[in-house]
């Protein structure tokens, strides 16, 4: 698969009242044409910063982000190049992303107006097509956002994102604010879009089962960097990093036992060695002294853990 988006050694540090925070550290990952890559991690892991960097909403301090082989910064400087059309986004809160004073028809047409696509009759036609594509009833075209359900509002956001036929859709927690049955609907829709248009997606979520449902490949992020990466089934069925194993055991097992115990909560993430050490059930001395690199265990499946090959043999909870 040719790579559409490539992050190499990306760094991003934010300056806060309490000193600098390294949100993203030497992060590398790729997304192929038409590929769905799930990025999973907890609050503060840096996953939303990755979305913002890819969208050009933040600038990286180091490393490179390339889209179709060309630096994202260059794409953005060259307004004619169309990066903002090629890469679109859907965010977590469906209503916050919509102007409450505009009707659905206007909202879906807005990207077409901004990028001067078609005349008003053609745009009207395109709005109807887009609404049909995301399974929105045509009668909703004159509604205001507050007259929509959360699921309908998120469909409007998806229709807006599709309007310019992007090659990459960045979805940052697109279903976490929705009810369970509506979540399922939106996930179905995203799958359908990926299949029918072979549109690549960067799908970001804190929930491993949600990511697993959609993704060809999964990247697990912890404390600003990738700790495990591999094909969706491999990562969730045979996790090799202790953090991924924790995510798997925390995942919903509805009819099974009551899940893992409470473990230990530590707020401080160490500034050297493996960042997961304070929460790790298997850490050895070497882990605090030296941070492991992201090494391939078998083709396409990598892990940032000194003990990864042992853990992959033992499996979850071993």
């Amino acid at each position, binding site marked *: 698969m040719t790579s559409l988006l490539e992050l190499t050694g990306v760094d991003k540090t934010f300056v806060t009242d309490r000193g600098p925070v390294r949100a993203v550290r030497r992060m590398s990952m790729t997304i192929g044409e038409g590929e769905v890559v799930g990025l999973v991690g907890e609050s*503060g892991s840096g996953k939303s910063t990755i979305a913002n960097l890819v969208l050009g909403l933040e600038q990286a301090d180091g490393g490179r982000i390339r889209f179709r082989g060309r630096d994202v910064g260059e794409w953005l400087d060259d307004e004619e190049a169309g990066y903002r059309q090629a890469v679109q986004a859907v965010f977590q809160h469906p209503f916050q992303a919509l102007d409450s004073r505009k009707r659905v028809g206007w909202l879906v047409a807005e990207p077409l107006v901004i990028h001067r696509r078609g005349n008003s009759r053609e745009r009207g036609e395109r709005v109807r097509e887009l609404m049909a594509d995301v399974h929105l009833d045509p009668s909703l075209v004159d509604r205001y956002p507050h007259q929509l*359900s959360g699921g309908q509002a998120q469909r409007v956001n998806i229709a807006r994102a599709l309007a310019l036929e992007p090659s990459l859709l960045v979805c940052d927690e697109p279903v976490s604010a929705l009810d369970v*049955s509506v*979540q399922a*609907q939106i996930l179905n829709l995203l799958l359908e879009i990926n299949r029918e248009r072979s549109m690549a997606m960067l799908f970001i979520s804190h929930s491993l*089962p949600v990511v697993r449902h959609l993704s060809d490949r999964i990247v697990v992020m912890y404390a600003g960097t990738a700790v495990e990466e591999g094909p969706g089934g491999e990562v969730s069925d045979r996790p090799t990093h202790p953090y991924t194993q924790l995510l798997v055991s*925390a995942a919903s097992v509805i*009819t099974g036992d*009551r899940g893992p115990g409470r473990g230990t*909560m530590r707020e401080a993430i160490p500034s050297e060695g493996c960042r997961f050490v304070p929460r790790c059930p298997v850490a050895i001395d070497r882990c605090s002294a030296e941070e492991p690199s992201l090494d391939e265990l078998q083709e396409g499946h990598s892990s940032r853990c000194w003990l990864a090959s042992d853990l992959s043999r033992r499996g979850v909870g071993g």
Partner: protein
Amino acid sequence: MSLLAVEDLTVTYPGGRRPAVKGVSLEIESGRTLAVVGESGSGKTTLALALAGLLDRRARRHASRLEINGEDLLAAGRRRWRQLRRTDISFIFQSPINSWNPTRTMIAQVRDAMSAAGHAGRMPELMDLLARVGFEDPERRLADLPHQLSGGMLQRVSIAVAVIIEPALLIADEPTSALDSTVQSEILAILGELRSEADLAMLIISHDLSVVARVADDVMVLYGGKVVEQGARAAVLGSAVHPYTRGLLDSVPRLDGDRKILLPSMEPGHLPASGCPFAPRCRLVVDDCRRVEPDLIPINDTLAACPPAASSALITT
């Protein structure tokens, strides 16, 4: 004897086409947890507010029985409810950051809560409890303002304060929905542990069946203000018969599920003015469902308000 007993509770808001909660009956014994499952608009939050005497003044409440600890509360006034909430009923809310005043330190707010409940002298015990649930050096951390603590830490403080005043009833409204999945399971484990130690009755409200699976003894599924199915945890999660419960269970993405099998279609619709509230979305719907509001009947291992499910259960078993 049940710690909490409610019979035929109906709550109507002015201008509402249907009651927000209709004919709900439930009982919880000390040491047991009842999970109320429902999505937006199911009436689950109205139910919780009614049980804590926190309904909006304009809401109309009817019930044939409402008892906590054997005390009849049908006629209880605002003052009695306020007392109960200080000493007998604790609440944990969904959004940890909105539960605390952003301009005051945590320690000041925690002290206020403790003295309001008449437990000002038990601050050292609270610190011990916080240490037990994962706070290193709780006194130092509580000197912070709420925004300086993570959601998981704030929720730990809420739980510790809610439990240490030794309430009879703990109502937790979506206590983990705003948290990461690993933090979620930690918080649920803490809740479960403290609940069994304190032997209190817990009502947990959630739309998330994986949460319910971890903490509940009994489960009640609400749809459109009505109980559509109820039973023991294993029965509801393992052999539910109501089409809504089944749909909810099938909607949850699972790690062991086949990838890219589409989840079932369950887009919410408008609630009908009469008949079964779920009828417009239901795959088992028959004409009667639109006319007659079904009552709970025993089907297999649960109680479910669905006559068509009863007949198909007869055929399949």
